[in-house]
């Protein structure tokens, strides 16, 4: 990890790290594991969603939250039989939101990784995205080893950040931005040579600047996303898995996928 770090808000990263450290050290009140009964008793479930990741979560023209994650969150509340409280979170602050009990669960396109599972608990996948390395057509990049002389941009604390950081050789300049839109702008203005993005953002990039002919050079990771809970919430975890299993089988999840991606739900792995 001797890569160069250029986050737009280095202090925020510091804050998150410090906070995560404090939470892990157990020096304060531990995060509360919640049960199904807790949700039923308070008749409400607070769900953290991203509102800056189309089409998973966005603010629409009526200033309402909508997207794939929002629809899944609505289904979750419906089957739990409680009212839904949507809480907007950001990629970097979603773990603090969950661990400090500000939300009950996250439906936030959160890629399932063992590193994250040290802090939080994932359900079986309910969506998936492909993380790609993208660059203009004339730039030849065959594999991760060829990234070394390049400046590669990623959204900080995202799966593409983890994937690039792991795959790029030592000495690669990895530049971390706040979100995908900012990273995309860095690519458009030539401040980075390549970008790690998901397949949905790639389509936006191509639409924004057709002449650059942005194309995927290689796949970094296929990312299944899980609904995220606090560790130890075994009872609720089992319910959430049951819920995903059910809406996958009865076609509701497929309908949500059709609505936002215009295609059928891909085969999702289970564990």
């Amino acid at each position, binding site marked *: 990890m001797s890569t160069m770090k250029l986050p737009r*808000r280095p*202090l*925020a990263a*510091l*804050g*998150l790290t*410090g*906070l995560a450290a*404090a*939470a892990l050290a157990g020096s*304060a*009140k531990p995060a509360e594991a919640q049960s199904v009964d807790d949700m039923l008793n308070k008749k409400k479930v607070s769900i953290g969603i991203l*509102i*800056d*990741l*189309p*089409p998973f979560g*966005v*603010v629409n*023209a009526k*200033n309402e939250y909508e997207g794939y994650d929002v629809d899944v969150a609505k289904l979750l509340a419906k089957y739990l039989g409680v009212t839904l409280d949507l*809480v*907007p*979170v*950001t990629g970097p*602050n979603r773990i*603090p*939101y969950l661990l*400090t*009990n*500000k939300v009950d669960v996250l439906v936030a396109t959160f890629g399932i990784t063992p590193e994250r599972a040290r802090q939080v608990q994932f359900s079986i996948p309910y969506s998936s995205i492909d993380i790609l390395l993208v660059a203009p057509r004339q730039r030849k990049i065959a594999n991760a080893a060829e990234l070394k002389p390049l400046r590669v941009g990623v959204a900080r604390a995202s799966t593409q950040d983890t994937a690039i950081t792991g795959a790029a050789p030592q000495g690669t300049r990895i530049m971390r931005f*706040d*979100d*995908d*839109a*900012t990273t*995309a*702008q860095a690519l458009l203005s030539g401040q980075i040579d390549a970008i790690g993005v998901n397949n949905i953002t790639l389509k*936006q*990039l191509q*639409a*924004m600047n057709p002449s650059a002919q942005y194309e995927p050079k290689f796949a970094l990771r296929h990312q299944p996303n899980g609904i995220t809970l606090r560790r130890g919430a075994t009872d609720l975890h089992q319910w959430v898995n049951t819920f995903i299993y059910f809406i996958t089988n009865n076609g509701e999840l497929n309908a949500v996928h059709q609505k*936002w991606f215009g295609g059928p739900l891909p085969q999702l792995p289970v564990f």
Partner: protein
Amino acid sequence: MMRHFGPLEAWFIITAVRWTLLLSAIAFIGGGLGGLLVALARTTAQRWLRTLAGGYIQIFQGTPLLMQLFLVFFGGNLIGSGLDPLTAAAVALTLNAAAFLGEIWRGCIQAIPPGQWEAATAIGLRPLQRMRHVILPQAGKIAIAPTVGFLVLLLKSTSLASIIGFVEITRAGQIINNVTFQPFPVFGLVAVIYFLLCWPLSFLSQRLERRFGTVSR
């Protein structure tokens, strides 16, 4: 799925101005009251009060506002009482502003020549009367420029509250940027709004300075 940056998107950002203004107003009023106490504590004869206020200032001037926002917002939940983003941001900004304003105003109070303090004591004013009738009116004039300068800074600092999820204009801009991918019109508008908010303050400061004049030494 992609949205174009149009009137609706601009309106989303413009309506977020009220949150920036509300946050600034709370922080400035709260910070002003707190800052006055801090400034008085820093200039009192009581040694323990001076030390206490000094420690407070050191803590809040010596740590980034972003960390303070984080600790208040997420830390509050860890010790049991959760704050919503607005309250947390207001508390953190108020505490921060009190420290800075306290130190600015301490300087202004201490800039009043010793002769003024001695003359006030000589005519028999008690410490509180001396402060109220002689020192503070003069210190207030010196304080205008740095205070407004800090207020402008504070207004812009409210953008840091976007990190805890509070949707003021900067966060509204980020949200719109992520559905339009058009950072230049989005953040251009955000910058123009900040300017329109800050410029009248600077203008007001110049007017006040001209009106009250500066204290002669």
